[in-house]
């Protein structure tokens, strides 16, 4: 599938080639609409099905069946006739559905009648002291290294945090024979009580069977330390050891070469927010989510959001949501979608959501790991600490946009992706307000860096030139 010739207008543009984007683009193209799918990575699958076409991990037992399910979705897309552009970074999306995209060293601007944003999720920040040291990475990073490059850590390795992906990675490492010295489990005891009311629907979900088997294997093979309440990474130019605490107990030191952190994933909001899509704070998942109708329609006409970017619900739910957003686009552009197809899809979505409430409650990350204190770095790009943020709030800083002026916090290249949630929560805590009241960074395009040269090379019309040229 090659990029082909880029047109300047399409019926539907889909951004992101994970399960949601693949489903959406496949369906739109299959319905006869001129459809284009952009993805930043070089091959399709998003993060969950990363490198599914080309992983060097050929033994299917290592990555597991839920990973390999992605192959069918990729094949389905391949048959659909949608145009696919890999290695393409969408750096802007306007309310009028004008898209700025960069690939192969040059930028292009095009329009679509409908846009489906499927930019997925990223890992929740895990701000502990020393989390910026080389050798400290996310569990997702470790999964990418395994799936894309067949690599595993070679020295003393510790996994820390909570959430299904942490256990999935541990299980994949056990299958691969990779070394794990310990798993530091940060799930607080009260989460188990909170999750209990949702246990019934969890037991009947696919997560239960798969999850139970997975956990049993990991707990049999790896040392798991539950009830971890504090963690810090120590080292000079790289991580050399970590110190943790269980409950109110004494501090324990472990030498470590690779520390893999994970405490859940959250929507990657940058493109959606910069397009003016309204978001709301969700107190269950502790993150910002777009305000959407059932079919993924956002507050901006003609732009829908699907997949984990619409709210964390897993790969299967992402697929069904991508399809629902596609049906809405197809119908909006005058073609038919059989009602039976829609109801089948809604049923699939409902099935895939079973059990999520239990997981959300069980793996709700504790406040101590969401709201750091003291010299712990919050904004990695600008090296702003928790103490500096707290002091700014005491001086009268009211929100994340003001804190940019106080501290440059949030003004680095990641554009708040790794500090935003922490900053919102710290300011809310300091002010005695809710995260919803405090708000989030005001995001604007370009949402990914693009060179001045690429922007300057974009086609300019007479009016645009006359607007700036002095005669």
């Amino acid at each position, binding site marked *: 599938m090659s990029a082909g010739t880029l047109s300047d207008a399409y019926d539907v543009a889909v951004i992101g080639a994970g399960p949601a984007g693949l489903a959406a683009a496949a369906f739109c193209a299959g319905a006869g609409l001129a459809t284009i799918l952009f993805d*930043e*990575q*070089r091959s399709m699958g998003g*993060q969950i099905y990363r*490198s599914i076409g*080309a*992983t*060097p*991990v*050929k*033994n299917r037992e*290592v990555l597991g069946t839920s990973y390999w399910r992605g192959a069918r979705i990729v094949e389905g897309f391949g048959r659909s006739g949608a145009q696919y552009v890999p290695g393409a970074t969408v750096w802007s999306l306007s309310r009028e559905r004008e898209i700025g995209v960069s690939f192969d060293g040059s930028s292009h601007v095009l329009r679509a009648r409908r846009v489906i944003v499927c930019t997925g999720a*990223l*890992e929740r920040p895990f701000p502990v002291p020393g989390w*910026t*040291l*080389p*050798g*400290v*990475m*996310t569990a*997702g*990073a470790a999964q*990418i*290294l395994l799936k*894309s*490059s*067949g*690599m*595993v*850590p*070679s*020295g003393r390795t510790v996994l820390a945090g909570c959430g299904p992906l942490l256990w999935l990675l541990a299980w994949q490492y056990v299958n*691969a*024979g*990779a070394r794990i010295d310990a798993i530091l489990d940060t799930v607080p005891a009260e989460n188990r009580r909170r999750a209990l009311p949702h246990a019934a629907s969890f037991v009947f979900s696919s997560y239960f069977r798969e999850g139970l088997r997975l956990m049993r294997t990991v707990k049999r093979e790896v040392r798991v330390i539950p009830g971890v309440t504090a963690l810090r990474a120590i080292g000079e*130019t*790289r991580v050399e050891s970590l110190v943790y605490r269980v409950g109110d107990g004494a501090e324990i030191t472990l030498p470590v*070469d*690779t520390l893999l952190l994970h405490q859940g994933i959250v929507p*990657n909001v940058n493109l959606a927010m910069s397009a003016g899509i309204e978001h709301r704070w969700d107190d269950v998942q502790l993150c910002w989510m777009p305000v959407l109708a059932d079919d993924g329609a956002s507050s901006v006409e003609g732009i829908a959001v699907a997949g984990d970017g619409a709210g964390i619900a897993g790969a299967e739910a992402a697929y069904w949501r991508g399809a629902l957003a596609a049906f809405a686009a197809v119908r909006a552009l005058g073609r038919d979608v059989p009602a039976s197809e829609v109801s089948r899809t809604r049923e699939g979505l409902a099935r895939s959501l079973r059990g999520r409430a239990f997981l959300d409650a069980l793996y709700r990350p504790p406040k101590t790991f969401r709201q750091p204190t003291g010299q712990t770095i919050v904004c*990695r*790009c*600008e*090296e702003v600490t928790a103490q500096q943020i707290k002091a700014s709030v005491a001086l009268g800083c009211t929100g994340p946009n003001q804190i940019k002026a106080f501290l440059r916090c949030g003004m*680095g*290249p*990641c554009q708040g*992706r*790794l500090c935003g949630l922490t900053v919102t929560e710290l300011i809310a805590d300091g002010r005695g307000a809710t995260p919803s009241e405090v708000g989030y960074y005001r995001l604007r395009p370009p949402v*990914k*860096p693009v060179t001045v040269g690429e922007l300057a090379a974009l086609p300019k019309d007479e009016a645009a030139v006359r607007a700036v040229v002095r005669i």
Partner: protein
Amino acid sequence: MFKRLYADPTASPVTIWIGDVCHSALPTDTVAAAMLAAGVLQCRTTAVSGASRAPYCMMGVCFDCLVSIDGVGNRQACLTPVRDGMRVELQYGKRELGR
């Protein structure tokens, strides 16, 4: 510190330069993966404090893997596939215009 456990036996290795040192990489590697496989656990030092940074997220959102590739600075190593003969340089401190 990462090692290769699985590799495509039919893939022909490529050569990349990291600083003055030549390293072998596989064509499906990103620059970040190739650096980790080569035992290079630093991409840059920060503009604010000179602290050492290496890849954190491997998916293009953290910007800690910024390196100079073939003379162009601030490129995300985890999003750039290796190419035979590629020259990768670590970035120290603030950037300069034109690099």
